[in-house]
Each structure stands twice: as C-alpha cells, then as structure tokens.
C-alpha cells in the first residue's frame, strides 16, 4: 500500500474510533479543519510510524509542521523516497 493510501486509511480508522466527523480528504484541506484534534494526530503519527517505519517528525533536524493534508502526505512520501 502506498504511503498516501496508508495515511488516508489510518485517518478514516482513527476518525471512526474517536467518533470524529471528517471533512472530505482533499490535498488542500487544512489539517486544522479536517475534523481530527491533536490527540487524533498524535495517534496517527504513532500508527504511521509502525505501519510505514517512518517518523518524519523525528528524522530530521529541520522539521517543518505541515498545515494541509497534501503537505502532510508529502512529508511521508519524501522520507519514503
């Protein structure tokens, strides 16, 4: 499964578990508006680390915090490449 598919599927799983209503997951969707709160994002990053063996937030000195879904996915795709 690609990083993108894994991320989208994990977002949907976590939203269901946490009973959060998701906005349509488009690349230009602001993370702040997607329906997940910071605890949901924390869980997402932890599960993605397990599923993809990637933790882009810890891997580099220069961490930039993504603000849109597209930037979030790109952060993982860049590290996977």
């Amino acid at each position, binding site marked *: 499964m690609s990083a993108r598919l894994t991320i989208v599927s994990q977002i949907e799983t976590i939203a269901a578990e946490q009973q959060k209503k998701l906005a349509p997951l488009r690349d230009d969707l602001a993370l702040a508006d997607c329906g997940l709160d*910071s605890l949901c994002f924390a869980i997402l990053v*932890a599960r993605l680390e397990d599923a993809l063996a990637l933790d882009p937030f810890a891997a580099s000195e220069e961490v930039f915090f993504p603000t849109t879904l597209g930037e979030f996915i790109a952060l993982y795709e860049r590290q996977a490449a």
Partner: protein
Amino acid sequence: MPFTSDRPPEPASLRTLLAAREGLRLEAPAVRLDTRELLSTTIFGGRRRDFSRKSALIAVKAQIDCARALIELDGIAARLVISPPDFSKEKLESALAQAEVDVVIADDPEPTHLRPVIIPGAPIPSPVDTAPSLKTQWVMPTSGTTGAPKLVAHSLATLLGPATAAPLGPAPVWATFYDIRRYGGLQIFLRACACGAPLVLSDPDEAQGDFLARAQAAGVTHISGTPSHWRRLLMSPEARLIDPAYIRLSGEIADRAILSALRGAFPRAKIVHAYASTEAGVGFEVHDEREGFPAALLDGSGPVEMRLQDGSLRIRSPRTARRYVGRPELALCDAEGFVDTGDIVEKIGDRCFFRGRRAGIINVGGLKAHPEEIEEVINAHPQVRMCRVSGRRNPITGGLVIAEVVLDDAGAGREKEALQGEIMQLCRDRLARHKTPATIRFVPQLDMLASGKMARRHA
C-alpha cells in the same frame, strides 16, 4: 549561599506591588482592566472584609475573575486556594477539607460545597484598602490526577522570586496559552504584575484564532505555553496571526523538533525554555535553543541549587514550596530542603537531558495518565493475562499511551484485530480519551524484576 543579599524587599501584598509598578493591564474577551481600575474597584460588593483571616477557595470559571480575587484578597485572607478549571467534584471536596476552607468564591451557589459561597459581582468603586496586610498563604494543587489532590503551600514571595525588577527597554505585552491557575500560568500573571506589563488572558470558550487575534491586537510581544500548546499552534494556519519577540516553553520537555520548528516559524523571536514545577518552583531557563540544559547548572553556582540523585533532578531554592497543606504525612522536601522533582535526567558530557518521569506518569499533551490505571482496565478483558502500559514519545502531544498485552490461550487463538478493537473499546468506555492506548501490541511475555514487579520503561 545565593539569595541572601540581593533579594528585593518582599512586597506586602499583590496590591502594594501593583500600586508600585502600575502598568498591569488584564485583557479578557470584552474586558480590559488597568491597574487603577483593579485597585479602586471590588467584585465582592461590601464583603471583602468577610475574607479577613479566612481560608478561601477560588473556584470561578473565568481567569479574569480569579485574577481579580487574587489581587483583592492577597494580604486579607489567611489562605487563598486556587482551584484549577478542570478540578473534579471529588478533588474539590478533598481540597475544601485539607485546606480547611471557610468560604468559597464561585459563580453560583453549589450546594455540595457545604461552605458559604460568595459570588463575584459587577465591579463597584471601593476605597483603597489601607488595613495592614497579613502574609497570605497561596495554595495550589500539583498537576497529578489520581487520588486526593496534593495542595502545595506557597507565599507571594516564593511565587514571585527575586526577579521582580521592571525590565529595561519597552515593556513587554504578555499572553499565555496556560491558564493562570496552573503554576506556569500563574508565573506569567505574577510576572506581568511585577513588571507592570499588559497580559492577555484566554477564555475557555474562545477559539484559538480569536485569542491570537486579540493578543496581536493588544501588541503581544511575549507568549508562553507548553511544547504541546506550541505544536498545536504550529499545525494551524493561525500561527501567522502572531509575530512574538519572545517565546517561552515550559511544563513539558522541549525537544529539538519543537525548538527548531519554532525557530523556522518565528525567525525574529527569542526562544526560551524553562523548567519549573508547582513544588520545586522555577528552576532555570535555557536560552541557547538546544534541548536539555547545561550541566554547569548542577555546580551550585546558580541562584537555584540543583543536583542529580538516584537519577532524578533535585532542587533547593527560595522559590521551592514550603509544605503540603493538610497532609502532614507527606514530606515536600528532604532533610536538606531539596525537592525531588521526580524528573529523570541524564548527563551526557556538558549537557543534561530529561528522560521522563520516575513514577512513569505519561504526559499526553499536558494531561497525565498513570500506566497502572489503564493496565487495570485492559486486564479486565477476559482473554488478557497481563499487560504493560507505557508512554511513547510523540511529536504532537509529547507523549502517548501504548500497551503491550499478553493473551491467555483462548485469546492467543483469536483474530488479533478483533481483540485489539475489543480492548480499545473497553478503554474508551472506562477511561478519558487520552488514556486509551494509541497502539496495542500482543507480546508473548513481559519481563519481571527481582522484586517481583514488572519491569517498566518510562518513556
């Protein structure tokens, strides 16, 4: 010994401090109060003297009302107990008993208080109080979440510390993501009082963007919060609303990722992370933008004495709290006056790094979770033999709860995803959200120590 000669004289009360410095301005949604108004009005009608030499607990919802009560009653009440906004009813009852509270300041007359309640009203003019001040004891609970609250006794002097001189240059304008009823937030409130600076207070019902817009409109220059507060901000486009000159982090470990992310987002800001706790007081500030702190701080030359003992940081200073209120069986410090912070510190070369809490309390974005409490819930699942809950470092919330589970024979034969779902549902049904494990891993066994206790790794 530091702190003997260069301490400024202690202010008689918060009001005398405000009167001497002026400049304090409190801003809340739809409220803006300057020093003159704060000193010449009362929210207690004609009843301020009812607090004389009494033990009063402040349990109002709005931060601004708490701030006003502190300003009005310091020097009048014998004891002021500051109740945090999320205090449960059980904790409140316990605090009322432990602190021998005579009167409660609240927004409505809650019958379970079993104490007289005074409800703050609209401010009315009040003559300046010229009665002699007494040394009011300030009491705050520690941030632990289980059992009876531990109430920590401070005084205005221990909370203010020696750094009460007004800063050189233009006065800062402060804002804080903290609530002023937490030690970190109270520090900012008192700092604003001491140096005569405006302070923008948030409101629990206010969106982050509205708070930031208000802060920016007030000309905010100095902002404080936990690393989790700052991570939340950085993940929001609202970060662009502010352009602070000074960023302060405290209350959690400031790791390299958050320090460098803040540096990238706020290129002109000075970024400082500070160490403080309700019991130990303010320890130190780190100005070099690196995680951890210089090992040189342990050499006893600084204003605060610090040492490592049994792996944890110990602090002794004029800012450490005096004792716990109503709990004579608990010692706040050792025989030499050092407070064990419980924070595990590792010294590598000339730098010290925080490794976590001795007690293994997991800090999830400022909310605490005790592993044992969660293990108890998971262990209630019929096919779980044992489990170990621990913390895992997380770039968003600082820490996250995870679980390792050993199944019994019946469980071992079942489909793992279904079992994970059942265990998570069990946790969600019985625990606060942040305590539900983010991941559950099934393991064949868990290690045990010679003492018969489970080996724990405290993240």
